[in-house]
């Protein structure tokens, strides 16, 4: 991406987390521990949604100011 300066930011690397982690089945393909009756497989993947929201919001906030011209 040599043609682009203003979209570049080290914060963007954070977006790799919510992309890579939900793809690692060895992290969550278990029944125990349960939460509110939900097996780990289900509640942890639902928790990944929160991870996605937190990281994209953070990256949005941190890269917003850089875009003001």
């Amino acid at each position, binding site marked *: 991406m040599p043609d682009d300066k203003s979209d570049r930011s080290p914060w963007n690397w954070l977006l790799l987390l919510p992309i890579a982690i939900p793809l690692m089945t060895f992290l969550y393909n278990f029944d125990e521990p349960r939460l509110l009756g939900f097996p780990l*497989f289900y509640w942890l993947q*639902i928790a990944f*949604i929160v991870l996605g929201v937190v990281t994209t919001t953070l990256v949005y906030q941190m890269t917003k100011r850089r875009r003001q011209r």
Partner: protein
Amino acid sequence: MSEHLTEIIVFTVLFLVVSGMGFFAARWRRPTDLASLNEWGLGGRSFGAWITWFLIGGDLYTAYTFVAVPALLFGAGAAGFFAVPYTVITYPIVFLIMIRLWSVSHVHSLVTPADFVRVRFGSPTLALLVAITGIVATMPYIALQLVGIEAVLKTMGVSGSGLLTDLPLIIAFVILAAYTYQSGLRAPALIAFVKDILIYLVILVAIIYIPARLGGWSQIFGDATAKFAATPAPGDGTLLNANNQLQYVTLALGSALALFLYPHSVTGVLASRNRDVIKRNMSALPAYSLLLALIALLGYMAISAKIKPIGTDVNTVVPQLFDQMFPDWFAGVAFAAVGIGALVPAAIMSIAAANLFTRNIYREYINRDPTDAQEAGVSKVTSLVVKIGAVLFILFIDPQFSIDLQLIGGVIILQTLPSVAIGLFTRWFHKGGLIAGWVAGMGAGILMLYNVANPATKHEHFGGSAFALAKLGLDTKMTIYAGFLALAVNLIVALLGTLLFRALKVADGPDGTAPEHYTADEGDPRIKDLNLSGST
């Protein structure tokens, strides 16, 4: 029929209210003139964060999703839950990609992904391939929205076999076609508010009320585990097994990459006002994923409640569950939520497909210099044709065929990734290499899908997207998402083809874009009256 009378009345009233809103939408946010694609097809590119959130949410999480994902969990268990990681990883992936597409489309007044390819690679052929891929992938998707409505109508007992009993479905689609024709993208944008509020309401009630009646979540998961343990099928269960984990992961990743290549997603994104709206939405849209995760679990609730699908149509398990668990009037609300949920994406999809035809086939090959009004006129008529086609699909062809086509749709739309998504970042690929890659990926994808059998539905071909690696001679029982392998083939051929065409000094197309076009924002200068054929 009488036992469903309350449901039918509630459903009909809500449906009519929403239809009224669809017609009213033409006057909403008062465009000076609806007769251009910018206004009719993209709502004037003026939508703010809230409208965009409802519009894209209503666009991506369709009625079919709401009936099919729980049906997957009902039938196969954990493997169906892929929809959750899929919708988690898609937003960070597109966070950086779609803002670039928005910017370059803003500067060049582009309407479709194929428009972008046309300007970027200077190749009408490549643009045509992207446009046709988009139309072919979208058509069965529209038909599937009808499958969603049909599942609800079946449960209420107002649909059966024969042409006359399909009348409610036809009426619903005629109304949809009429207000989309009149109001364009503003209609689904306005209706999406009602749809989403209804869906959120229904699901919140469902996940509190139904588990309470069934004896709690532990009971529900216990019943599901017991059911899968009792079946002879090796692939099901409430957890993944050694052989379907690769499929789970590649399907989630492949679907995430495909999602925003679909023309209707691009339409939703391009209709937003500026880059900020898109970025904010990428962090707010996962709220729908939460909803989707809970909806998916309705499949297990149906197991626990011992729901039986109507005939062999597993898509009826969710409507059946609502019918059995809720009081009649609330079941009516739930059915309306699903029915209206079908209208929003069906409208956006038909607009997106119509825009592709107008911009990349009509404008390129039939009338090279149309006025704005002519373009809008062609799109309006095409949107009608597309919807009639979808209805005919459902009436005269086995719905299973639409589901098969939708499966193929996901695989083939992925084949536009090198031109559209990678093209947003680099112009390295040669247009000839991209065309060769598209052909190879398309061929490989369809060949693989053809070789997937499904013993449960007795289909020898197109039985699913899980391709057995053993078919490639590997000694394993593992399966992989066919679209993922096809994309790999596509990329390798595109890469080799580019090197080859460069070595042979074959002329490449001109690039009509400049680096700063990819970061432009609201208020930055636009290239007026862009001539797509010359670009310079």
